[in-house]
C-alpha cells in the first residue's frame, strides 16, 4: 500500500489577524455570518491538496490591465506597476500560485452590470488580470490606479482606492481573497470594511507602499505588495496507526 500521509500539514489559521464573520459596522455581514462556531478539522488530503494551475490556463497579456482591454486607445488614469512576493508563514516562496486581481477604473466605476455609480465606464479599461508567481514567488501587474467610490453602507461611506486580490496557494486550505490599499490614503482609517479587522498590524499588511525604485521613469509609478499564505510544516514525528503504511 502507498504512503498516505505527507508532511505538509498547514499551520492553523490565526483568527486574530483576520476579520470576524460578524462585524456589524459592515452591515451586509449581519445576515451573512454564521451564528455557530466553526468546527475545526485536522488536515486530511482534502485540505492539503488543491488545484494546480499552469501557463496554459493563461495568456501572456493577462497581467497587463493597461493593455488587456484597450480598444481604440489607452485607459485614462495613473499608470502604475503593482508587484511583490507571495510567501508562506515560514518565509518560503509560494511558487506557481494563481494571483487574480480586479478593480474599479480611475474614477471608481466598475465594469459590472450591477454597478450603477454615475462615474463613467472607461471604454479602454476592463479591470481584471491574472498571473502565476514564478519560482521565487514573485508576481507583477501593470494597471491604472483605481479611484475611491461610494457605497450604500452608511450613506456617506466611501471605499478607499483598492485592488481585490485572490490567491490559490498550493492547497485548498490556503485559498485567500483580500484587498490591497495604497499608502497614505486617508480613507483607509475610516472604512468599515478595513475596520472589520481589529488588529492594526494586520491592517498595515494590506497597505502597499510606493516603490520608486521599481517605477519606470517618464512612464509609470510602482507599488510593492507582498502577501503571506499559511505555512505548511514538516512533520517531525509521524504517527502511523494500523492500516496506514
Amino acid at each position, binding site marked *: 500500500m502507498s504512503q498516505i500521509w505527507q508532511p505538509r500539514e498547514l499551520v492553523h489559521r490565526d483568527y486574530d489577524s483576520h476579520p470576524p464573520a460578524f462585524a456589524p459596522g459592515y452591515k451586509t455581514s449581519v445576515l451573512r455570518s*454564521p451564528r455557530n462556531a466553526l468546527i475545526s478539522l485536522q488536515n486530511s488530503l482534502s485540505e492539503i491538496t488543491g488545484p494546480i494551475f499552469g501557463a496554459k490556463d493563461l495568456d501572456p497579456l493577462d497581467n497587463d490591465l493597461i493593455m488587456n482591454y484597450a480598444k481604440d486607445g489607452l485607459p485614462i488614469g495613473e499608470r502604475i506597476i503593482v508587484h511583490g512576493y507571495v510567501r508562506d508563514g515560514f518565509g518560503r516562496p509560494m511558487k506557481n500560485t494563481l494571483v487574480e486581481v480586479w478593480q474599479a477604473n480611475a474614477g471608481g466605476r466598475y465594469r459590472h452590470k450591477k454597478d450603477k455609480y454615475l462615474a463613467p465606464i472607461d471604454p479602454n479599461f476592463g479591470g481584471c488580470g491574472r498571473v502565476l508567481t514564478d519560482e521565487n514567488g514573485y508576481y507583477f501587474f501593470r494597471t491604472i490606479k483605481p479611484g475611491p467610490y461610494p457605497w450604500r453602507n452608511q450613506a456617506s461611506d466611501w471605499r478607499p482606492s483598492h485592488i481585490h486580490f485572490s490567491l490559490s496557494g498550493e492547497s485548498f486550505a490556503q485559498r485567500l481573497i483580500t484587498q490591497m490599499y495604497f499608502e497614505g490614503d486617508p480613507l483607509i482609517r475610516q472604512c468599515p470594511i478595513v475596520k472589520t479587522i481589529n488588529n492594526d498590524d494586520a491592517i498595515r499588511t494590506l497597505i502597499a507602499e510606493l516603490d520608486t525604485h521599481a517605477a519606470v521613469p517618464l512612464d509609470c509609478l510602482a507599488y510593492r505588495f507582498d502577501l503571506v499564505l499559511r505555512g505548511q510544516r514538516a512533520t517531525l514525528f509521524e504517527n502511523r496507526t494500523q492500516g496506514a503504511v
Partner: protein
Amino acid sequence: MKDYLAETASQTAGPYVHIGLAPQAAGFNIFEKNFSHVLTNSHTQGERIVVEGRVFDGSGTPVRDVLLEVWQANAAGRYNHPADRQNDKKLDEDFRGWGRTCSDFDSGVWRFDTIKPGAVVGRDGRLMAPHLNLWIVARGINIGLNTRMYFSDEQEANETDPVLNLIEWEVRRNTLIGKREQRGTEIVYTFDIYLQGEKETVFFDV
C-alpha cells in the same frame, strides 16, 4: 513566534467578485481562456453528476452574488496533486478536480457539472466517505467559508466518516448531505447552503 510571518488578512470579495474571477458573469469578455463550473471533458472517468443549490442568508433570502469553488478527488478517490500519494489509485489526466461557479443574479441558483468522487483515505488510514470540498465567498462574507457536501446515496459510508462524526450535534450532520434525484437524463444532487439561522450549514475551520 516572531520568526513566523502572519497570514495576510482576509477581506470580503465584495459584490463585484465576478469581474476578476468570472468576467463573463460580470457582463464582458476579456480572457481567451475562462475558468468554469464544468469540471469534466469527454474523456473524464466517472459518473456524470450535477450539483446544484442556492445559498441563503439569515432572513431566508437567496444570496444572488455568491461565488463558490469546488475541490474534489477523481472517480477513483485520488486528488490531482503531488501531495496525494495514494499510488494504488489511478490519476485521471482529464480531471483537475477544481471548478468555480456563480449564482444566477435573479434566481440565486448555482451549479457544477462534475463526476461523483471516489472515497479518499483519511488521517487514520480509514476511508472518508465521498465528498466535495466547497469554498464560499460573497459580499458580506469577511473570510471565505469552508464546507463539505456528502452524498445521500452513500449512507453507509457517511455513518463512519471521520469528519461527519466530529460534529457532536447529530442533527447538524444532515446539513452536509446533498440529495440525489434523477431529473430527465441528469443525476442531480441538490445542496442548499444556509449561512445563518435554524438550518445553518456546518462550516469548518480547515
